[in-house]
């Protein structure tokens, strides 16, 4: 089916070339980092994880978000999602590939990556994260491919594939749960040490993932003559609304626990993220604009996808609304959550993190590579769709 990705109009190739350009820059930047070391990033012994791991964390959520299509379609037989379930599965594949690229970019000794397999360590959450991420990636690739092939041949998918489809549902939940466990099981990092991290991750994932799928569906309607169907889009927006509310509810609970209990460890990081934390006469606040961006974009996006006028009557407003929610939750989880957790340090000092240009280009390039893969996968899926219709 790959031949479908080799035929496209000028816009298709220009889009791929545009993404390829950023991938190319990132390759050069990565080689620089590879030969110099991670010292080319803004990370230090106090903030030992930076943009790479925060993007990884967010993208695990995007990958898990695809299950919000798979679950209603296969468990509840919600037929309207039939046409776009493949979009969710292929989004999961490209998001997971981005995750793996971010992990590799973050390793100090990338060539030793297979040590995780050579010396399997069940007490490490990173080991389990690797297991579930690879498992979910393979499941999505398998299910997506087999079902798409069946659709192309216009036959029912083989029965055995449903076994893997059903397994992929708990796997989707597990990838983000285990990713949350990377953080919430660490003693002494108070901001992360919260049992609500995993549900909060899932809630924001089930908003951000489907939001991206809606945006993709709206774009595909314009550029690829692919209509996901009004009913499917509308149902997805409903899912986004509830998941987004759940996420904000959980964020609110964190605030309550932190500020009402007034235990320094529990509110210091929130203070740093949203208002700036004073320490020895200096106020540290470099993430404050991002966090207020998170709140403002949430309000804007939430209004646009709830208000019937903007939600149902105008694709552009709906798209902007979903993009706002997506960006908002990216700021929350892809910036604030990971970077904030390192403030203050275990020695009660504050080190602020600023990514370097090299690091930013690698990050942008990995995102571009992910969208490059996503474009190709969607091209194949829609090519098959058009072939069947013709």
């Amino acid at each position, binding site marked *: 089916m790959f031949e479908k990705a080799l035929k496209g109009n000028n816009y298709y190739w220009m889009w791929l070339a545009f993404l390829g350009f950023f991938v190319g820059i990132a390759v050069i930047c990565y080689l620089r980092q590879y030969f110099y070391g991670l010292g080319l990033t803004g990370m*230090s*012994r106090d903030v030992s994880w930076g943009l790479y791991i925060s993007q990884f964390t967010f993208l695990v959520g995007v990958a898990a978000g695809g299950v919000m299509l798979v679950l209603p379609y296969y468990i509840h037989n919600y037929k309207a999602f039939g046409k776009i379930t493949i979009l969710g599965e292929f989004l999961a594949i490209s998001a997971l590939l981005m995750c793996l690229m971010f992990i590799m970019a973050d*390793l100090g000794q990338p060539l*030793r990556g*297979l*040590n*995780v397999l*050579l010396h399997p360590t069940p007490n490490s959450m990173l080991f389990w994260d690797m297991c579930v991420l690879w498992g979910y990636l393979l499941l999505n690739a398998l299910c997506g491919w087999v079902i798409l092939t069946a659709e192309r041949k216009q036959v029912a998918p083989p029965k055995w594939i449903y076994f893997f489809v059903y397994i992929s549902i708990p796997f989707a939940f597990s990838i983000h749960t285990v990713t949350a466990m*990377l953080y919430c099981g*660490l003693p002494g990092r108070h901001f992360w040490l919260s049992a609500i991290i995993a549900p909060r991750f899932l809630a924001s994932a089930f908003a951000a993932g489907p939001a991206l799928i809606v945006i993709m569906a709206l774009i595909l309607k314009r550029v690829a003559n692919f209509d996901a169907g009004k009913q499917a889009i509308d149902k997805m927006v409903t899912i986004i609304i509830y998941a987004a509310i759940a996420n904000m509810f959980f964020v609110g609970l964190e605030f309550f626990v932190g500020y009402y209990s007034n235990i320094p460890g529990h509110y210091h990081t929130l203070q740093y993220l949203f208002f700036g934390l004073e320490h020895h006469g200096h106020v540290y606040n470099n993430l404050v604009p991002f966090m207020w961006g998170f709140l403002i974009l949430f309000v804007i996006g939430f209004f646009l996808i709830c208000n019937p006028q903007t939600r149902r009557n105008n694709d552009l407003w709906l798209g902007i609304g979903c993009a706002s929610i997506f960006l908002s939750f990216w700021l929350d989880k892809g910036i604030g959550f990971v970077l904030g957790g390192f403030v203050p340090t275990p020695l009660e000092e504050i080190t602020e993190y600023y990514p370097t240009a090299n690091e930013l280009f690698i990050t942008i390039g990995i995102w571009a590579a992910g969208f490059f893969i996503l474009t190709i996968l969607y091209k194949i899926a829609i090519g098959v769709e058009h072939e069947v219709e013709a």
Partner: protein
Amino acid sequence: MDKKRRDFLKVAGISTLAGLGGTAVVDRLVSGTHPSVANASGGHGEEHAAPKEEHAVQEAPKTGKRYGMVIDVKKFQEDPALGERISRACIQAHNIPEFPEKKDEIKWIWMTGYENAFPEKSTLYKDETTEEHQVPVLCNHCDNPPCVRACPTKATFKNKDGIVIMDFHRCIGCRFCMAACPYGMRSFNWRNPRDFITEVNRDFPSRMRGVVEKCNFCAERIGVGQKPACVEACGDTGAMVFGDLNDPESEVRKLLKENYTIQRRPSLGTHPSVFYIV
């Protein structure tokens, strides 16, 4: 053309496998030769690969050794130069690089404020000693180390004698252990450290970039009957005493019996092996 590519892929595949497997084989072959020097490095530490059985995460056996340290903070207040002496001794003993930029910083033992070391012990009106004086901090060699729990490759592990050490050859540089350490005692080689070592100690390996390192309680020295470098640098002051916590007759146990001591963040359940007389 096609055939050539196939051949190339075959050779590339086999050599990759050999490369990956090769290191494992070397690890196995040399295991057990130097149990006391379980610190290997990228440079010249091939013979130091850590014994396999020591990678198991387990409680220190009650009958075996559990090395620990008692630090007398008052002695450091009496002699303000002592702090610099011990960190210097450590830097020389372990080829610790000194970078011009703080961002690249690597440190194993250093002096910090009392409230930085013991954040849970803050008071509104501090006495003079608490306000002004510094205490040494180093890896606590926890009995229940979170870093060992987090490491995905067993590159950091607890030795039979209670010392938490690093296998620099196995570390993949994911820095999960740095996030897991609640004391901030781990450092990462953000860049090649070898150009920044001022005095090279040929008896201890240097590291390569991209791996984590930290205090190893001078495992290489106590293995041959010497004291840790920092303890030795204290001379006769008795500011730092090293010994077996499981031996009731040891000097550290005697000090613990006679003095009121505190540990860093005991509420986290890590059971540090470093005690402070304040």
